[in-house]
């Protein structure tokens, strides 16, 4: 009786979870679609366009911060794409931290780096030590600061200590930007006034894209099944999750691959946290927590137009390490900012997005796997009819498919996206379906591992991704 009762309790919890997820994501999709429509309407009525900013002699200085760890085979296309930005007042600071693969040497060879006599001091709390500082003789906008390690967050902080820009754009060392990315990201700061603290944008998967000699990227479908499934995941995450939360004024996270910050806000917040592997999520939650405590509401803007391309892992080991790290970072961030949960002082973040993140996203892998096991067990023991299991599974799969295709459609309206030819839709539809049947469950198992590691505590480390970038990216 107790076993049957527990089974029913698990079923009820799983069903409740599923209903909240389904309703939540449907609402986010609707909000995201509405916001996309409004953005197109705003584009027509905009007084200052991106082109106005690009041409303006009074444009503010933007510092692009690129922390790099073992990125010798990815750094050059990234730096080339950054220096090709259509922005006059630009500063690019690359921080190779703890590199032993010749990342610095690659930059030296390509950009004729010359040593500079900068002061090497850093704050007492810094983890990495500055070993050398360089400036490019080929392009004066490029500066390089070599550090002894300390992690991605510490490398970003090191660059922020020396940034001269009013705005700082944090990007990953394996990401490429659209030529107008900086201008488009600065626009909300100018347009919406002083409340805007952070601007982020949608990110596309770089694998399979075509990189032109001028650094611009034409999106395309990857060849590898893993990358294809991540393409669907990225579209869902950015065009439903981020866009939906942003439309509610409750965006809880900005991707580390592309985030434009007001430098003064970032410095006032104390920079990135060097003790967590989810420093991007932690920083945004801290901004919500700190700034709101001080009585000022930070506006975090999300641009649904894809401005950045990033490489995703194509091997199981890298993907597994990445997902474990992400979930572990989520656990750490939720542990640190638990006070925001259902806290009315934090507005829509405390009442909507943080509970969704802290309860549902965090526990999703546990509930998903537990629910799968419980339903199978219940059906096997006759406690529940197989027809119910099959019908629920059918609904779960088709619902997931509808979300995925909705996200891909929202991605496509911003111009030529992954779907270059009509037949590409069939490929994506197929992989969106396959992603629901196996990959999702495997990812849930990895995230569960991350959840366990996060709860147990201990020091987490950043893994290394095996790049196949300009490597898998073909020149066209």
């Amino acid at each position: 009786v107790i076993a049957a009762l527990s089974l029913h309790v698990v079923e009820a919890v799983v069903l409740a979870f599923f209903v909240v997820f389904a309703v939540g994501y449907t609402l986010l999709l609707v909000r995201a679609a509405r916001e996309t429509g409004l953005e197109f309407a705003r584009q027509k009525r905009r007084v200052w366009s991106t082109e106005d900013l690009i041409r303006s002699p009074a444009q503010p200085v933007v510092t692009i911060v690129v922390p790099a760890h073992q990125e010798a085979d990815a750094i050059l296309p990234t730096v080339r794409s950054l220096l090709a930005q259509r922005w006059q007042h630009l500063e690019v600071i690359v921080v190779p931290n703890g590199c032993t693969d010749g990342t610095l040497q690659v930059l030296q060879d390509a950009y004729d780096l010359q040593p500079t006599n900068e002061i090497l001091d850093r704050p007492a709390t810094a983890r990495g030590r500055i070993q050398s500082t360089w400036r490019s003789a080929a392009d004066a906008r490029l500066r390089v600061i070599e550090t002894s390690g300390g992690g991605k967050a510490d490398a970003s902080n090191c660059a922020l200590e020396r940034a001269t820009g009013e705005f700082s754009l944090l990007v990953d060392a394996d990401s490429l930007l659209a030529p107008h990315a900086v201008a488009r990201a600065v626009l909300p700061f100018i347009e919406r006034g002083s409340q805007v603290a952070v601007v982020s944008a949608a990110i596309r998967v770089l694998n399979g894209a075509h990189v032109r000699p001028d650094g611009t990227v034409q999106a395309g479908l990857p060849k590898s099944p893993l990358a294809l499934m991540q393409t669907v995941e990225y579209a869902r995450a950015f065009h439903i999750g981020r866009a939906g939360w942003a439309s509610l004024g409750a965006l809880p996270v900005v991707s580390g691959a592309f985030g434009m910050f007001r430098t003064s806000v970032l410095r006032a917040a104390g920079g990135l946290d060097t003790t967590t592997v989810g420093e991007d999520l932690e920083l945004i939650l801290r901004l919500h927590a700190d700034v709101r405590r001080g009585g000022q509401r930070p506006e975090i803007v999300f641009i649904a137009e894809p401005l950045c391309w990033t490489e995703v892992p194509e091997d199981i080991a890298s993907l597994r390490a990445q997902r474990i790290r992400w979930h572990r970072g989520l656990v750490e961030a939720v542990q640190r900012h638990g006070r925001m949960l259902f806290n009315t002082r934090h507005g829509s973040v405390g009442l909507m997005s943080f509970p969704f993140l802290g309860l549902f996203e965090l526990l999703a892998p546990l509930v998903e796997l537990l629910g799968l096991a419980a339903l199978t067990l219940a059906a096997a023991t006759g406690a529940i009819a197989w027809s119910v299991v099959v019908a629920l599974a059918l609904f779960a799969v088709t619902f997931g498919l509808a979300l995925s295709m909705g996200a891909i459609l929202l991605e496509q309206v911003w111009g030529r996206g992954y779907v270059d030819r009509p037949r590409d839709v069939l490929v994506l539809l197929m992989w969106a379906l396959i992603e629901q049947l196996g990959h999702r469950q495997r990812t849930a198992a990895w995230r569960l591992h991350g959840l366990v590691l996060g709860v147990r505590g201990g020091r987490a480390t950043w893994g290394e991704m095996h790049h196949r970038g300009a490597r898998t990216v073909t020149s066209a």
Partner: protein
Amino acid sequence: VGTIVWLAVLGGIIAGACAVACALACAWLARAAQHGSPSTTTVHHPEVQQPVQAMLQRHAPAPAPTYMAIMPAVQPPQFVPQPPETSQLHHSQVVRTTGPGGPVVLEGSYPQLGNALGAWLQDERDEIERIRIARDLGTIGDARSARALLDGVRTGVLSPTVAADNLQRGGFEAGIAIAAALRDPEPRVRALAASLVGRTTPLEPANVLTNTLRPMPEPPSRRPS
């Protein structure tokens, strides 16, 4: 059980239909992009464009076919002409002379004067000299001076009153730098930006000022706003 099964099947059919509809819409968009359909191009609405153009004209600096800026000198009779400092100056009609009171006389035709000063401003490394050039550039309403003028106020080298006068001449273009300076860490710069934002930006001034004032506790920023 029957109800759950029917609801789930019905939900599945609806979701599946939505997925197929989205896929078809994607395919249509891809086909349209291949054939150069105007589905995602910007459509110009005359009723929107007209006020914007009028606003642009209102905020644009007044054209000056020939311009001569004579800055106040301490001892004009003692000026000793010096050769131009940057290569750009050789190609323009600008003459810069240096006297005991510093660089004082600039003359030339617009826009050569502005271009020469703009190039000079970019090359100049000395902070005080940069502010001087920016002030001269601002006098002729060139927005290239905006950032340097704000820097001057930030460091205390330049009086906010002088900067405000010059920034205002920069009009629409300077508004970009001013809007960005609304949350500058330095209160003097914030106060200056707050006092100018309604005059130089084509944004809704009331909204911008309300947003600006909310996080600014200090009276010097609130008063000019």
